[in-house]
C-alpha cells in the first residue's frame, strides 16, 4: 500500500530520525541534496495531501463480504463432543490408544498411554441439509442449513497463547499484525465515527494470547483492535472530565490538531497524520460509542432472540453489539469467549459439567447472530466465523488420575463453522479419521482459513502485504490456499 518512491521513502525515514538534528550538523542538507532536489522535497512535503489512514479503500477485487464477525472460542472447544461424532471412537471407549498413533507425539499434559474417550454427549442430524451437530448446541442445530462446518482444521501449535496468536496473526510469536489489523489496513473503515476493528471479551478470563491476538504488529498502530468493554465505561475515558463540555473538548482537539498540522508540515512524518486522525476519531467516538452500547433501544424480541442481559458483560450482549457494529460500518468484530479448555481436572473444566455450561453461555447468541443477520438481509455480506485455536484429543486426559472426563490440547484436528459472507450454507467440509485423531480428507490449515477469509473480503492474500525489515510480510506468511470448494 506504500506508493512512495524510493526518494520519498528516504525522505520520510530521514524525518523520523530527527532531520533537524542532522541538519544541525550540516550533514542533513548534504544527504538530502544527493537524494532529492530542494525544490522537490519542499513540494512533496507541502503538497502531500493529508490522508486519513482509516479512509475507505477498495480491496483487490469485488468482495463477497463487507464485514467479518469472528466468534473466537478461546481455550479450544471440544470438537469430538460438539461437531465431529466418531462412532468407532465410541466403540473403543476406555481402551488404551494404539501406541503407534501417538508415537513421537508431544502432548501439553497427557502422560503415558492414555485411554480413548468416546463422547458422553449425543449428536443429531439437523435441518434439510442433514448436518450433524451436537445436542449440546440446540440453537446452532437450528441454523444447520446456514452454516458450513469444517471438520478438517489443523494447526501447528498446541498451547493456548502461541496457538491463539498463530490463528490471528499467522505466526506463533507476538509481533505480527492480526487479521483484523490486516483487513482494516487494506480496507480502512466505512464507519466514520467508530473504529474499523473492535474486540469484545466475555467469559471467565481474557484470551491467553493477550493483546497480541488483536494487535497491529508492525502495521501503523491505528489498525489495532479497539477493545470495547460491556461493563462500565464502554471505552475507557470516553467521557470528558468534570467541567469539560463537549464544546470545550471540541475546541481543545481543534487546537491540538492545528498545532500537530503545523508540525506535520515541518516534518512530513505520517505518524503525525495518524495522530490527528486518532484524535478526530476519539472525539467522534465520545458520542458514537455510548449510542452504540445502548442496546436497550433494541426491541424486546431481539433481546429474547439473543438472550441478552443488559448491563452485564455477556457473550450474548457482545453478539448483539457485534451486529450493531457491522451495521455502522465496522469491518472486523472479534468476540472472545474464554472457558472451553475442558481438560477434566475438576468439574470446572470437564466434559460433563463445564462443557454444557460454556455451550449454554454461547450457543443461543451465536445462532441468534446468524438468524438476526439473515432476518435483516445482511448475512450475504457479513461473514461469521466460529471456532477456537486448536482441538481436543480423542483420549481422556486423566491428569494425575483425575476422575473427571476431559481432553487435552490437540492441534491435528478440530472444527470451525462459517456462515454468510459468500460461504456455501448447509454443507460440511473435510473429515477426520475414525478416531478423530488426524485429518484424512480436505485438510484446512490455519493459513488456508485466513486466506479464505481475506478472499471473501476481496483480497488476494498473497498481495495484501506490508514491507517491514526489508521483507513483504502478509497474514498467511508464505502459505495458504483459498478454499474455493466452500465458496457459494
Amino acid at each position, binding site marked *: 500500500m506504500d506508493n512512495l518512491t524510493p526518494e520519498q521513502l528516504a525522505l520520510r525515514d530521514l524525518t*523520523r*530520525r*530527527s532531520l533537524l538534528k542532522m541538519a544541525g550538523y550540516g550533514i542533513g542538507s548534504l544527504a538530502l541534496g544527493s537524494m532529492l532536489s530542494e525544490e522537490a522535497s519542499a513540494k512533496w512535503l507541502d503538497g502531500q495531501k493529508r490522508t486519513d489512514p482509516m479512509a475507505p479503500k477498495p480491496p483487490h477485487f469485488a468482495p463477497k463480504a463487507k464485514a467479518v464477525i469472528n466468534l473466537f472460542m478461546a481455550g479450544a472447544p471440544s470438537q469430538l463432543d460438539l461437531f465431529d461424532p466418531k462412532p468407532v471412537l465410541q466403540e473403543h471407549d476406555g481402551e488404551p490408544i494404539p501406541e503407534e498413533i501417538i508415537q513421537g507425539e508431544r502432548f501439553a499434559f497427557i502422560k503415558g498411554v492414555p485411554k480413548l474417550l468416546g463422547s458422553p454427549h449425543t449428536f443429531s442430524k439437523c435441518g434439510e441439509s442433514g448436518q450433524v451437530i451436537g445436542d449440546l448446541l440446540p440453537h446452532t442445530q437450528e441454523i444447520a442449513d446456514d452454516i458450513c462446518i469444517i471438520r478438517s482444521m489443523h494447526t501447528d501449535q498446541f498451547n493456548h497463547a502461541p496457538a491463539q496468536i498463530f490463528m490471528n496473526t499467522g505466526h506463533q510469536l507476538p509481533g505480527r499484525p492480526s487479521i483484523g489489523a490486516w483487513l482494516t489496513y487494506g480496507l480502512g473503515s466505512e464507519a466514520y465515527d467508530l*473504529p474499523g476493528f473492535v474486540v469484545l471479551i466475555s467469559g471467565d478470563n481474557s484470551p491467553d494470547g493477550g493483546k497480541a491476538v488483536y494487535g497491529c504488529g508492525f502495521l*501503523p*498502530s*491505528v489498525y*489495532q483492535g*479497539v*477493545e470495547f468493554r460491556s461493563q462500565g465505561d464502554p*471505552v*475507557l*475515558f*470516553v*467521557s*470528558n*472530565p*468534570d*467541567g*469539560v*463540555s463537549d*464544546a*470545550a*473538548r471540541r*475546541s*481543545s*482537539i481543534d*487546537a*491540538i490538531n*492545528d*498545532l*500537530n498540522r*503545523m*508540525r506535520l508540515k515541518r516534518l512530513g512524518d505520517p*505518524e*503525525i497524520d*495518524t*495522530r490527528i486522525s*486518532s*484524535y478526530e*476519531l*476519539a472525539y467522534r*467516538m*465520545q458520542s458514537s460509542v455510548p449510542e452504540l452500547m445502548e442496546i436497550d433501544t433494541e426491541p424486546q424480541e431481539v433481546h429474547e432472540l439473543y438472550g441478552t442481559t443488559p448491563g452485564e458483560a455477556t457473550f450474548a450482549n457482545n453478539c448483539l453489539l457485534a451486529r450493531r457494529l457491522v451495521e455502522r460500518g465496522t469491518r472486523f468484530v472479534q468476540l472472545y469467549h474464554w472457558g472451553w479448555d475442558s481438560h477434566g481436572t475438576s468439574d470446572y473444566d470437564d466434559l460433563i459439567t463445564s462443557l454444557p455450561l460454556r455451550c449454554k453461555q454461547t450457543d443461543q447468541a451465536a445462532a441468534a447472530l446468524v438468524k438476526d443477520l439473515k432476518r435483516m438481509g445482511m448475512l450475504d455480506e457479513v461473514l461469521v466465523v466460529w471456532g477456537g485455536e486448536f482441538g481436543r484429543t480423542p483420549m481422556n486426559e486423566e491428569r494425575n488420575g483425575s476422575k473427571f472426563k476431559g481432553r487435552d490440547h490437540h492441534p491435528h484436528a478440530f472444527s470451525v463453522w462459517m456462515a454468510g459472507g459468500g460461504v456455501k450454507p448447509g454443507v460440511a467440509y473435510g473429515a477426520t479419521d475414525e478416531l478423530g485423531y488426524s485429518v484424512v480428507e480436505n485438510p484446512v490449515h490455519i493459513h488456508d482459513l485466513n486466506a479464505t477469509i481475506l478472499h471473501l473480503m476481496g483480497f488476494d492474500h498473497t498481495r495484501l502485504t506490508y514491507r517491514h525489515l526489508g521483507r513483504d510480510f502478509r497474514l498467511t506468511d508464505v502459505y495458504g490456499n483459498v478454499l474455493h470448494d466452500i465458496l457459494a
Partner: protein
Amino acid sequence: MSREPTNTPLQALTTLNDEAFMRAARGLARRMLECGAKTAAGRIEHGFRRCVVRRPDAEESSRLVSLYREELERYEADGEAAKALIKQDEGYVDGATVAESAAWTMVANVLLNLDETITKE
C-alpha cells in the same frame, strides 16, 4: 529511537480525559500562572517549553493565545464548569480567577496532548 507505539483513539481518550493526565494539566497550569510572565504569550511560552523544550514559533504561540482567549470567555460564562474543572479544593494561584485557572488548565491539557509532547525522539 522509536515512536510512541500506540497512536490510537484509545490512547487519545486516555491522555485527554484520564484523571491522572488532568491532574498533570492542573499542575502545569499552576506553573504557567506562577512563572512570572505578565502576558498570555509569556505564560504559553513557559508551558510550551516545559512540554517540548523548544520555544513556540509565532504561528504556534498565536494559536495557543487564541485558545486561551476562547476558553477564558467560555469559563467566565460558566462558573460552575470552571470550578468543577479546577477542582476547587486543589487551590490555584492567588490573584488568578477561577475562570483564568480553568482556561489555563485547558491550555495545559492541549500542551500535554501535542504529538511533540507525547512522542519521545
